């Protein structure tokens, strides 16, 4: 790992160079009253002082709608054509927080646990992740409770920490180094800034070990029903989550031609598990809420050795009825 200093002007110059070299740069930008990721044409569009973007950066590798293959039928014969993975652009995603970068870990685990998902992997290969360590947090943030932190570098290729007059840059991977080379002059020698001094202090909200232990025996607990009462069963939490990976397969058919699509889905939807027979193994919202929590905090750690939560707090911010996940976990 290499440490450098970069001024804001230097950073913007470097990012503009990246844009000029045909890389797709995604970064937080203003979207109405909210801040969310968007493709930027110039570095000065980028927002730095946000606490959290509405959505996570997962769509850079797992878009909300993705073409798996296309087909054409003629008199009973079908021609298939797979998605052209080589056409995916070189991508830089900038300004995400450590919790988002950490999310690529569980996401990657899901897309590779038995079948290696070519689409996801191809996109990840072409993506460089530049995180911005957190100097602020709000009442929804709880990364420190799930083994993360405001300066956590897991999943980052480069991490920037806002310091006096600029940023402390940690070049963490080869991908990161290669990116720096686009405009090395923008980077200055490390000024010896102490990263921790600048990071937000975020107390733990619960003890994750205890929570996970309790969950092991909580399947039949009445708490699910009690907690989920106000849940209205939308998919907002899943869609903004950096680790939620459920998808649905749809077909965009036009006569004899069509495309097979992969679209986001959510275990919170009542129809998510509905069988054709009419049977639904998760009939109530309580069961679906239980599934969401157990999946993230029990099944994934058990099977994939990763936790399905990075403490970004997006689900709680996005929830129309204030299903605060940290509060719920604490109350188990």
């Amino acid at each position, binding site marked *: 790992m290499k440490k450098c200093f970069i001024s804001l002007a230097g950073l913007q110059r470097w990012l503009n160079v990246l844009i000029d070299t045909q890389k797709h740069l995604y970064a937080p930008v203003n979207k109405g009253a909210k801040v969310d990721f968007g493709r930027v044409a110039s570095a000065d569009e980028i927002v730095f002082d946000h606490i959290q973007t509405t959505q996570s*950066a997962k*769509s850079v590798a797992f*878009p909300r*709608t*993705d073409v798996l293959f296309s087909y054409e039928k003629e008199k009973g014969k079908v021609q298939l054509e797979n998605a052209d*993975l080589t056409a995916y*652009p070189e991508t830089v995603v900038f300004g995400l927080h450590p919790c988002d970068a950490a999310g690529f870990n569980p996401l990657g685990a899901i897309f590779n646990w038995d079948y290696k998902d070519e689409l996801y992997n191809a996109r990840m290969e072409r993506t460089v992740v530049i995180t911005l360590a957190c100097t602020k947090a709000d009442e929804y943030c709880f990364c420190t409770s799930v083994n993360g932190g405001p300066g956590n570098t897991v999943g980052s290729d480069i991490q920037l920490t806002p310091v006096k007059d600029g940023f402390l840059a940690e070049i963490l991977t080869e991908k990161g180094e290669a990116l720096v080379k686009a405009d090395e002059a923008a980077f200055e020698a490390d000024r010896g800034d102490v990263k921790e001094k600048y990071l937000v202090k975020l107390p733990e909200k619960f003890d994750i070990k205890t929570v996970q232990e309790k969950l092991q025996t909580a399947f039949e607990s009445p708490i699910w029903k009690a907690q989920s009462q106000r849940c209205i069963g939308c998919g907002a939490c899943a869609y903004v989550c950096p680790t939620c990976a459920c998808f649905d397969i749809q077909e965009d058919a036009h006569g004899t031609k069509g495309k097979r699509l992969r679209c986001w889905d959510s275990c919170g939807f009542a129809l998510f598990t509905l069988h054709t027979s009419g049977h639904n193994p998760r009939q109530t919202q309580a069961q679906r809420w239980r599934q969401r929590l157990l999946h993230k905090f029990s099944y994934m750690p058990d099977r994939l050795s990763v936790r399905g939560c990075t403490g970004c707090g997006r689900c709680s911010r996005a929830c129309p009825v204030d299903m605060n996940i940290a509060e719920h976990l604490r109350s188990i």
Partner: protein
Amino acid sequence: MGRLGGALMSEFEPKIVAFVCNWCTYAGADLTGTSRIKYASNVKIVRFPCTGRIDFMLLLKAFAEGADGIIVSGCHPNDCHYTSGNFHARRRWVIFRGLLNFMGIDVNRIQFSWVSAAEGAKWADVVNGTVTTIRELGPYTEYRKAADYLVQQDKSIIDGQEALIKSVSSL
């Protein structure tokens, strides 16, 4: 007539779908035929039992699939074969037009009319009038652009569209 039949090649030929009821306008269009009144061939008729049957989504689908203009036509008020289907339809179109207009979807591309089984000439007028209007408005690419997620120019990462464009080259 010659112009309508063999339109100039350079001229934009709008695609128009007509949603009509079986009892009045479909029969009226039959009468246009039996009267040998010529009209523009840009229109294709879809037969419904009644204007009350016509789902607003079908109109949007027609636009998405390439229609530049739409005609919706049925029995005159009080003439509905089913007594009131056209009245229900009329209310639906009032609301639908209001919403589309609010969203900036071009309601001038949808021509509503009442054409009875006796109004063969009126049907030809309605079709020709609509063709002229739509020809002036031009192709409705604006809407179709939104329909095709492969060429969407949105800059949002969440769409991942640019990636899609290149991923499927053959279509």
